[in-house]
Structure formats: C-alpha cells, structure tokens
C-alpha cells in the first residue's frame, strides 16, 4: 500500500485529544482481562486465544505499519483445506485453534 501519511484529516495532537481517553480505557480493559486470567481458580490450562491475544499485543506495539490488518491476519485461518461439513462447528472463536476448531454458538450478523 502507498504512503498513507495525511489520509486522516486530523493532526496528531487532535487525534490524541479526541481519542486518548477512550483508548486508555480499552487498554485498561485488556490489562484487567489478563489480570482476571491470572486470578482464575487453579487447574485451567492457557487457552489458545490467550496466546493469540498476547502475540497480537506484541504486534500492536512493534511500531510497524498496518497494525490492524496484521492483527486480523494473525487471528486468521491460513489453511488451504476445506472440511466437507460444518457439523458441530457453526460458530467462530476469534483465533485459530491449533488442532481442530469446535464451537456451537457464534456471532449472528
């Protein structure tokens, strides 16, 4: 993609002024989510989605361009094979399960 500098009509200062508090709050939500996992009752194993989230956080902070698209690709199924049927896996999970995906609920739209 070509240079995107200047495609947002706001200045850096204006963007921070308009959006900082909203994104500060979202970052704190992520931190609290990770803290909550640490406080969970003993016995559970780390879920593949936790690992994907932490990988994505590294990517967000790497200073490179196109963070959103790269995070979405990180969460995407890159396989080529097509299962015959969706029996037992109607919903999506948000990240790729290392073995075979499963799930019954999911987003509606």
């Amino acid at each position, binding site marked *: 993609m070509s240079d995107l500098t200047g495609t947002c009509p706001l200045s850096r200062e204006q963007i921070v002024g308009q959006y900082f508090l909203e994104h500060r709050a979202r970052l704190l939500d992520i931190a609290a989510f990770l803290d909550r996992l640490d406080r969970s009752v003993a016995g559970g194993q780390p879920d593949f989605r936790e690992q994907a989230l932490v990988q994505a956080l590294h990517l967000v902070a790497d200073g490179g361009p196109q963070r959103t698209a790269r995070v979405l*690709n990180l*969460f995407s199924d890159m396989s080529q094979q*097509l299962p015959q049927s*969706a029996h037992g896996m109607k919903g*999506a*999970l948000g990240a790729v399960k290392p073995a075979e995906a499963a799930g019954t609920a999911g*987003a509606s739209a």
Partner: protein
Amino acid sequence: MKYIDPHIHMVSRTTDDYQRMAQSGCIAVTEPAFWAGFDRSSAQGFADYFRQLTEYEPRRAALFGIRHFTWLCINPKEADDPAFARDVVALIPQFLKCDTVLGIGEIGLNKNTKNELIILEEQIRLAEEHNQLILVHTPHLEDKRKGTRLIMDALSASTIDPGRILIDHVEEHTVADVLDRGFWAGMTLYPDTKMTPQRATDVIEMYGSERIWMNSAGDWGCSDPLAVPKARLEMQRRGHSAQLIDRVTLDNPRTFLSQSPKFRLGAESV
C-alpha cells in the same frame, strides 16, 4: 440528514427501532435473508420467512416513511445440508417477482466447507439465470480471510459483472482485495465481531470512497440499528465534508441498489 442502511435484519428488531431510525434520517433499508439463531426444520419455514420479508416488513417500515427492500437466499449457516438447502433455493424464483426483492443475499460461506461452497455456487447460478444483484456474507472472525478469497473465486467463475455484487463485512485485511477485484465492499458496524464507526472511517480515509458503503447489520445479537448515523457523526467529528459523508451513507448505496429497477426512493426522499 438522510441515509440508507443497506443491510439490517428488521425482522429481529422492534417497531420503535424503525421510529428511532426514521428520526435519525433513515429513508430506506435493505434486508438480506439470514440465520434466525437456530436452524429451521423445514423449507416451509423459509417460505413463511420470505413472506414476512416481502409482505409484512415493507408495511411496518412504511409506517415511519422508510422504504423496505429485501434479498432472498438460504444463508450459509443453514446451507451445510445440500439437500435441505436445495429445497429452500427452489422456493426463491417465485419470490423474485415481488416488487421489493432486489436480488440474492446474503449468500456466502460460514465455516468454509465444501457443502457450503456447493450451495454458494448454486445460488450464484440462480442470480445469473435471473439477472439478479448479489449481496455476499463473508465469514466471521478467523474464517473471514480464507472465506472471502474462496467466495471471490466462486463469483469470478460466473459471468456476473463484479460491479453488481457487494461483498459485505469487509475488514482491514480483506477490503483491498475486494475492491481490487472490482466488487463493491460493505463495512458492517457491529460491536465485538466486526467494525466500529472509527475503524470504518479509517478504512474510507485509507482506501477511498469508491464502491464502498456502511451498514449496521442490526439483528437479534448485540447490535445497533443506529450505527450508520453514529458513523456519520464520527466522520463529521474528524472534519470530513458533508459531501463525503453523504457519499458513503446515501449516494453509494443508492448507486449500487439502483442497478435493480425495483429500487425506488420516494420523491420526497431524494
């Protein structure tokens, strides 16, 4: 201000949502056939649903001065049983004659299976045979990237002009491919699983306003029937012109949808 919400599932919304949308400037909606949250047990269930979409909803919308149009199909979440899906697809031609049916949609893939792909291809052929516009559903979350590519390949194998096909639920990792291949792109303003008004505005800033629209896809899940006016406000907050805001929320939907001769807005709306 006036806008069109070109993808919203009003059968799942209450009448006061129509009222609030009208108060916010909505002049028309288009409603693709979709999954009810559970699998219907017979093709007859779809026949009833298609009657609701073509007979009942236009009347309910008209109470608030909103034009209601629809798209018909078996959605990908219920298309994994090919025999069942074919029974439903066989019902569609008789409904295509209705005054408010704009085309076939929202067809696509859900879990990117061979069964879903077979029915997608058959519904593309249905659109081809009946010269219908197509509205495409792309899969959720981790399945979107792969599914969007499979869907575009299936569409490109048909004779349908990509300018008559809108691929919905694009995100930052799929929008460029969709536009580069000549299709229209829809951004869905849906909490948790799709776009926010802020991200949708970012996409317009990065990829331009040609062949792109926004919709709420409001339905029975956590969703917002006022998402499009909220996106308009977000664009306004960033200083974008009224002309650009109207283009992506009113003019572009009107341009794409007007490829169907059935899409008409009242004289007072334009």
